[in-house]
């Protein structure tokens, strides 16, 4: 026992344990220094911008900062009747400052998100406020427009007091906080996002199913054919993969349009009448066809990499033990490909759920996805906080699917290649 507990010393008399730790620490620092540039690069170009963008979805400081005195004065207001002179005076003071800084336009945009009708009355107020006399601002402001005398509009302003808000998320679900502060759905004819979410899930799901059905036999062929054929097949799978996404989508547009090659072919073989060519583009069909083709390699490759490792003698063993070819496939081969199926399906589904270019080009009105809506708000309405809220919702949807997958199949059961 004594030999075990005795401390081992190095030649310079330092305990071996200490000097080993020292050497290890040095190595760790060196290793960290090697990855540090990439780490900083990732933080600066990836973590920080994405974090900032996601933060915008809940950030509502703008109005809070534009009307600091108003909100201070509103703290004592119960929201039942019109606020008293103190609030009007504070609002006037804030507003004058905003006009000086030429920022009242931004205020009107922001308040308009909360309640329609602010734009014009703020414009009127700006003009009128130049001739305001000191004192009794309540009367003066209320006389500018009758909406300024409407308690609803003051409540709308009050709702913008908090620095953070979840209303963009509600809007993404076609819901909003009404005047009573309750969360309700918007009128049925104005619900656009729920339809888009459902359609996104539906298209992503079916694209995954189609990809799986097509990729499984291809991957099996790839894994079992002799080298010279399987290489050729592999090139056939990879060639489109290496081609630009836009080129592939544009090719589908050429193929699928009403005067396109596929329709010409159908007319040529007499399947459809020339004056009754089916619309295969600018609708869901277009999205399905093009996305399935584009995402197919993401299913083929993980499946192939898993199938490649399955020894052909396993199927033979299954058959020699008395299993019919189907039983041997179903009980032996198929369970062994599940890691590849899981990886492929997860990959395709996650890619499909956030697909943007292809549905935008061939999807038309009925084939666009939630990502197109996000892009629309990024580029056209410039409501970035709403876009990032929907982005985060999409991201959490993906994470939920990932979590479900982990629960059901187990994430260590995944094999990407």
């Amino acid at each position, binding site marked *: 026992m004594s030999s075990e507990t005795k401390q081992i010393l190095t030649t310079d008399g330092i305990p071996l344990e200490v000097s080993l730790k020292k050497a290890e620490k040095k190595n760790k620092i060196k290793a960290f220094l090697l990855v540090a540039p990439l780490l900083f690069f990732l933080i600066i170009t990836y973590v920080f911008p994405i974090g900032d963008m996601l933060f915008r979805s809940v950030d509502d400081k703008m109005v809070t900062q534009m009307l600091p005195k108003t909100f201070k004065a509103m703290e004592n207001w119960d929201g039942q009747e019109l606020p008293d002179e103190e609030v009007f005076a504070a609002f006037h003071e804030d507003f004058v400052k905003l006009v000086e800084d030429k920022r009242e336009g931004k205020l009107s945009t922001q308040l308009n998100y909360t309640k329609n009708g602010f734009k014009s009355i703020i414009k009127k107020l700006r003009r009128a406020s130049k001739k305001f006399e000191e004192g009794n601002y309540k009367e003066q402001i209320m006389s500018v427009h009758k909406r300024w005398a409407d308690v609803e509009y003051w409540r709308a302003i009050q709702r913008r007091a908090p620095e953070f808000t979840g209303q963009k998320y509600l809007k993404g679900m076609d819901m909003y906080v009404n005047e009573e502060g309750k969360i309700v759905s918007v009128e049925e004819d104005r619900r656009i996002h729920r339809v888009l979410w459902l359609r996104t899930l539906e298209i992503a799901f079916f694209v995954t199913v189609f990809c799986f059905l097509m990729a499984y036999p291809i991957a099996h062929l790839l894994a079992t054919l002799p080298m010279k054929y399987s290489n050729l097949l592999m090139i056939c799978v990879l060639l489109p993969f290496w081609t630009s996404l836009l080129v592939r989508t544009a090719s589908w547009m050429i193929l699928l349009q009403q005067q396109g090659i596929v329709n010409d072919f159908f007319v040529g073989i007499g399947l459809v009448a020339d004056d009754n060519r089916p619309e295969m583009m600018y609708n869901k069909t277009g999205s399905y066809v093009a996305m399935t083709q584009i995402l197919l390699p993401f299913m083929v490759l993980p499946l192939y990499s898993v199938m490649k490792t399955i020894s052909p003698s396993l199927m033979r063993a299954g058959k020699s*033990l*008395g*299993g019919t070819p189907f039983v041997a496939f179903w009980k032996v081969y198929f369970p062994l490909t599940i890691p590849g199926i899981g990886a492929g399906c997860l990959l395709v589904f996650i890619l499909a759920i956030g697909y943007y270019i292809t549905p935008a080009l061939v999807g038309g009105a009925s084939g666009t996805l939630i990502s197109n809506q996000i892009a629309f708000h990024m580029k056209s309405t410039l409501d970035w906080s709403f876009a990032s809220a929907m982005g985060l919702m999409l991201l959490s949807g993906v994470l939920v699917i990932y979590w479900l997958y982990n629960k059901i199949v187990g994430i260590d059961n995944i094999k990407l290649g």
Partner: protein
Amino acid sequence: MSKQKDFVKFENVDKSYDGKVLVVKNLQLDIAEGEFITMLGPSGSGKTTCLMMLAGFETPTNGEIYLGGKAISSIPPHKRGIGMVFQNYALFPHMTVYENLAFPLRVRKIPKDEADKKIDKALSMVSLQGFASRMPGQLSGGQQQRVAVARSLVFDPQLVLMDEPLGALDKNLRESMQYEIKHIHESIGVTVVYVTHDQSEALTMSNRIAVFNDGKVQQLSSPDELYEKPVNSFVAEFIGENNTFNGEVSDISDGKCKVKLSNAEIMANPISVKSKGERTKVSLRPERALINPKEKMDNIHNGKIEEVIYHGDHTRVRINLLGNPEFILKVPNSSANLDIKLGNEIKIGWNSADARALDPK
């Protein structure tokens, strides 16, 4: 039950994969019920192809294979009821040992309690009781091998095929598994067709050995006959160690022949030579030649010791004899008094009956 002499029968079987080269040529082979027969041969000799045809994974190009009197070429593998042990075990990695063994029983719809009994029996046969709930990945190579053997036997097949089942094991394990498989065969009396390229494995385990080369059975006989009486020079060289002399028959009479070498003449046993002037290759097992023989032998020649290698139980001596510098002798280490030293000239003697004059190939 009387044992069937031709339980498995290969009748004029040809096999070609590409339509140009025959990998199995006109194979005739009868395997008796309960026999342990080994197909032995170098890689590419067609032995595995024969096994695959028997299992049903390949179809014969010509000819027919019979199992228990029935032609089986048109029966798919899963209906043949033949157990098979694969080279890399082919255990189903996603199933436990129990499930692996239950697979052939389940597809045969055998009730669970009966299946459990069979599985217990099969596992105890390979002494793996208590391993039923393990996954194959948690077993050592030898244990996996035994599971594979148990799985091939669990559904009581009449015929078990083994395709180089011990190839992946280390030497000690391989030897103990050889005995184990041999004992299992003896205790349950199943017919076994075993494929290997390891001659010592074949000699240890088999009732009969079929030596394959170039798509043909070169010799089919018991292990001792195969070793002692090879019928051609391929078999002589493939099985065991062998000293050879190339020469020409100069005289042949009374079951003996004279073979003229480049610088001497030796007496030999004419096996595949019939007349004077034929080229021949004389084959002599190393242990059949003696140093300084006391009894009278009809071949006694002088040679020079070129190399002495100590092997523990015996010493190998390389001698330059009659122009053959690769002549090997095995000397048991008990006879230490012999004058075996590097460079010494010694007398070597052997009987002409042991020197088999075979084809010159």
